[in-house]
């Protein structure tokens, strides 16, 4: 799962940008749009791309499990992995996408230097996601998770190309 420098791939600059805020899901079938989310710390972005339908979607979730606050989960399901990620897939299906065509990439889940792991929300976010996807027979094609990185992620709807910006560099995922 190694990333390659973005410059080597020859980026095309699309004109439209769709921003995914924390605890949001956005899906899009406009090939000229780039979906972006900023400053993923412990949060995780799951990117889904359908090359057949030329559609893409992204969630930026905050916490692993909705049991932390069922009330918040009812109001903002994309805040949690267990309520948000299924919703991301459902949103793609509404764009006529099929599960077998979807390519899944994951970024985020960072952490501070924290010996005991109390603040390691990133690791818990990632663990729950892996279990959730595994149970649903979904494979993660590429991922850039963990470490002390803060990541900004961009996904081009037309090509499905995903770039991760952190530590002053942009890499293709």
């Amino acid at each position, binding site marked *: 799962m190694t990333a390659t420098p973005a410059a080597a791939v020859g980026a095309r600059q699309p004109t439209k940008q769709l921003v995914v805020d924390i605890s949001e899901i956005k899906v899009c079938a406009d090939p000229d749009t780039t979906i972006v989310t900023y400053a993923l*710390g412990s949060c995780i972005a799951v990117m889904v791309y359908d090359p057949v339908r030329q559609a893409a979607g992204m969630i930026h979730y905050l916490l692993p499990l909705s049991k932390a606050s069922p009330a918040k989960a009812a109001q903002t399901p994309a805040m949690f992995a267990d309520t948000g990620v299924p919703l991301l897939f459902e949103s793609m299906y509404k764009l006529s996408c099929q599960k077998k065509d979807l390519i899944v990439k994951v970024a985020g889940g960072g952490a501070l230097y924290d010996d005991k792991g109390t603040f390691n929300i990133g690791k818990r976010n990632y663990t729950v996601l892996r279990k959730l996807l595994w149970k649903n027979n979904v494979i993660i094609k590429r991922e850039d998770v963990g470490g002390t990185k803060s990541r900004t992620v961009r996904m081009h709807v037309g090509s499905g190309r995903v770039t991760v910006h952190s530590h002053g560099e942009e890499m293709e995922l």
Partner: protein
Amino acid sequence: MIPTDAVVAKVDALPTLPAAVSRLAALHGSETTSASDFEDAIKPDPALTANLLKMANSAYFGLRREVDSVGQAVTVLGTKRVWEAAVTAGFSKTIPDRIPGYEVDSAVFWKHCIAVAILSERLSSQMELRTPKLTFTAGLLHDIGKLAIGSFLTVEATLVLSRMRTDEMDFVAAEREVLGTDHAEVGATVADKWGLPEAIGVGARWHHCPDEVPNEEDQVLVDLVHVADALAHTLGYGADVGELARTLDQRAADRLELTVDCLELVACNTLEEIQQVSEVFAPSGGAGK
């Protein structure tokens, strides 16, 4: 290494908080303060009055009826909240579009300050602690040192980054090694220069090394700001050049008896509030999370 007099010169050159905020600091600390004392202190500053009312009428406070005078705001919200609104309003105007060296835009820096203010208070309530009086304000102003030493960091940025990324050094330790000081130490100097209550300077000074707080009575306040800062960075509020290369002092988390459940509950319950307050005075620069 930055010579001490160069730091002092930078601190002197910073835009200061409005004088009315310092007057309110004194009034807020007094038991005999009335609504009209507060009104008299703020009235000479129309910009601050307008901004304070903007904050008081924001979704964060959720007032049923709009307040249109400082006196009304004090009656409805109390002196503590009005003082916090005044500091927030005053502080938002001192932040430049971009803080050099830390590679952070004003909107991102601002949201980090607001996040730490709100998280400090909410963590305290969630842990059922007796919240120290200036918790919100100490959280809000914990990083004021960055405003003063950002320009020094520009020159030395490569060294700091290399210590962090190659040697996996904590950001503050790298800052200290390269500059001979750090934003926490400089923050205490700024707080003093701005005439802020002592606890604000103490919060700024020790927020990265809470175990070294000299006076025991400041311990809870500093521990709260430390863990709120760690949580804010963890959640991605205020990503600067240091990214997540910060160290959580476990002793502070242990003293507060913080649990995973508490952190997660506070994280999901404050998301909206942080968004609302930071939008009231959103500075112009950059895309903020």
